[in-house]
């Protein structure tokens, strides 16, 4: 396991697990558990590069244990992936490991948690609290649990929540052998560096991060608004530590205002998500241990807005099948020349800088819950750039499931030194097959 979060994280997560499990001996605690154990395979179109892995075979497991007694709840949910073909891709992290007190109007949650602020299916500009596991599906990177304290209060038809996040959780990057590497074949990504609001570059992971989120149901609509101040985990500045000749990601402090919207209108589900991100520092004091490969990433104004809109409509067929049509679009608005801002900066800031996704989910409505998912994402600024997905999943009996997928990417060639944005998926055409046992 090359990218365990921290020993402290696992100690705490394991402690929660032990507490939850130990309560099974106490009849006053209600305990529930569930999980899955699977075999994942991924085969890329060969890139004729001996430095990369074209095939991955991994075992993956997820365990969730819930324990409840009166107003108190404990949860542990952890994920482990062990890749036999690329040990650097292996990872283990807590998704949730928290204790919660829940009263009539207030609740307090302390521990690792996943925060979901999203409304759309493919683009998630507002959903940025958690760090991500970047060697997973590009439209829905897996989330890593974030240590936080959340105080929630019922308010109207919804709630208002305040979050305090004292620890900077680093994303998990693809390995040096991964076809999706940020750094090019053979170059490992070192530990994260953090730009403080004073302009210092540090490895210290402790610092104040906070958020407030208001969530309300108004008639047929669900709305949420948030303000978030944290360390960005989505747009790393890649640099080198000349004292060690290592590559590291640097993350800047950012303030985000954003929101989500979902509404049912005559069977049509309308969705929207937006975020505006202000980078609190666009410069850094000179550091002997970090030199940005592209200094512009530390000097240019990278403030930007992202908006995503979507529509979803389902229809049942006489033969019993159900089709759901999904259309979504996302645009990035960056500082720079004209309304479109600086195209290069937008390209660096977001994989989907001006894209449209069209999709069909066909549910066969059978006992196996067989479902076919077909979608394509097209870059509106360059229609030749696209990514397509064909996925199929079904249950095998009542405890097993099978998931198969084909992904096709038509993207520009990678910059061999430092692939930018969606370039990392250049020729990353792939077939995936996952067999999972649920319990």
């Amino acid at each position, binding site marked *: 396991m090359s990218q365990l979060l921290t020993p402290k994280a696992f100690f705490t997560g394991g402690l929660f697990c032990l507490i939850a499990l130990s309560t099974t001996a106490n009849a006053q605690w209600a305990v529930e558990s569930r999980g899955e154990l699977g075999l994942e395979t991924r085969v890329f179109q060969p890139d004729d590069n001996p430095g990369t892995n074209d095939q991955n075979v991994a075992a993956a497991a997820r365990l969730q244990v819930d324990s409840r007694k009166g107003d108190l709840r404990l949860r542990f949910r952890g994920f482990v992936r062990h890749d036999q073909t690329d040990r650097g891709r292996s990872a283990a992290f807590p998704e949730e490991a928290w204790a919660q007190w829940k009263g009539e109007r207030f609740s307090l949650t302390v521990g690792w948690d*996943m925060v979901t602020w999203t409304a759309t299916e493919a683009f998630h500009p507002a959903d940025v609290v958690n760090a991500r596991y970047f060697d997973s599906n590009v439209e829905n990177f897996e989330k890593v649990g974030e240590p936080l304290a959340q105080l929630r209060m019922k308010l109207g038809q*919804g*709630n208002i929540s305040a979050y305090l996040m004292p620890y900077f959780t680093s994303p998990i990057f693809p390995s040096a052998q991964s076809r999706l590497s940020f750094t090019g074949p053979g170059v490992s990504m070192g530990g994260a560096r953090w730009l403080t609001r004073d302009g210092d570059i540090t490895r210290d992971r402790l610092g104040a991060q906070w958020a407030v989120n208001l969530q309300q149901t108004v008639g047929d609509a*669900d709305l949420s608004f948030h303000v978030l101040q944290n360390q960005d985990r989505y747009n790393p500045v890649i640099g080198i530590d000349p004292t060690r000749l290592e590559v590291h990601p640097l993350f800047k402090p950012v303030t985000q205002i954003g929101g989500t919207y979902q509404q049912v209108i005559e*069977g049509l589900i309308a969705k929207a998500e937006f975020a505006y991100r202000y980078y609190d520092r666009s410069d850094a004091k000179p550091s002997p241990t970090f030199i940005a490969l592209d200094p512009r990433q530390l000097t240019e104004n990278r403030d930007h807005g992202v908006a995503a809109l979507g529509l979803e409509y389902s229809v049942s067929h006489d033969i019993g099948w159900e089709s759901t049509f999904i259309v979504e679009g996302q645009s990035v608005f960056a500082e720079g020349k004209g309304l479109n801002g600086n195209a290069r900066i937008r390209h660096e800031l977001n994989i989907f800088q001006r894209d449209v996704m069209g999709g069909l989910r066909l549910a066969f409505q059978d006992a196996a819950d067989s479902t076919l998912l077909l979608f394509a994402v097209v870059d509106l600024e360059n229609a030749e750039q696209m990514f397509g997905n064909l996925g199929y999943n079904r249950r095998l009996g009542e405890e097993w499931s099978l998931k198969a997928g084909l992904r096709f990417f038509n993207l520009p060639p990678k910059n061999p030194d430092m692939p930018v944005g969606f370039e990392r998926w250049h020729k990353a055409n792939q077939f995936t097959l996952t067999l999972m046992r*649920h319990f």
Partner: protein
Amino acid sequence: MTKHRLLRPFPLTLSAIALLSGVFGNSEDANAESPEEKGLKIAQSLDRANEGYASESSTMEMTLVNAHGDKTSRKMKSQILETKDDGDKSRIEFEWPADVKGTRMLTWTHKKDDDDQWLFLPAIKRVKRISSKNKSGSFMGSEFTYEDLGSQEVEKFKHKFLADEMQNGRKIWKMERIPTAADSGYSKQIAWVDREYNNPIKIEYYDRKGELLKTAAFSDFKKFGKFWRLGKLEMKNHQTRKYSTLVWHDRKVGVAVDNALFESDELEN
């Protein structure tokens, strides 16, 4: 799923029987009404008579049987909250198969408007609003549709009394119900309503072409206080030869439930 017939089909209290006897027991008075007027009165009385149950909880086991006799099962927990002036609220948590364990669905039914529905997906910890417009979609791959299990408000049908009948020594009203929603999967339903249970014991569902599609059989009725509830529901699809059964366990009527559980932002708890 909404103000679930699967939880409370055509419910009626025994205390309402006297009222119903007064309204419908006199055949001369009844004859003075049109079949539509009498059908509506029966439906309204059934609806009124069930008021006051406050809340309900149960676990349910659903068995799906295909044309070859192969069986698969589903398990879920259900809670319902009665509301004044509008449809009820329900919350269902799926427990089996294992891959959907923890998935929850919240429904706010409405007397006239489409229901509000939300789905909680535990894998991504997301609450998603879903459309209740697609009524003819299958519920968990079974022969039940969302429409079968959903809100059965009086206003959502045109009612017609067809006949008084006797079946196995029991007094029955034979009724016709035509869904008012244009997107219903059915052209009509024929229901046989037991006058003691004040619930249907059988419903025939006719597809949009007017052909018999499915038959539901209701059985194992039990009395909870003054409310009758069924214990088993079997739905046979005549066109596919598949059938599904739904069996209730641990049903509690009138128990206290936390109202906050029926808010969309509480689905993840």
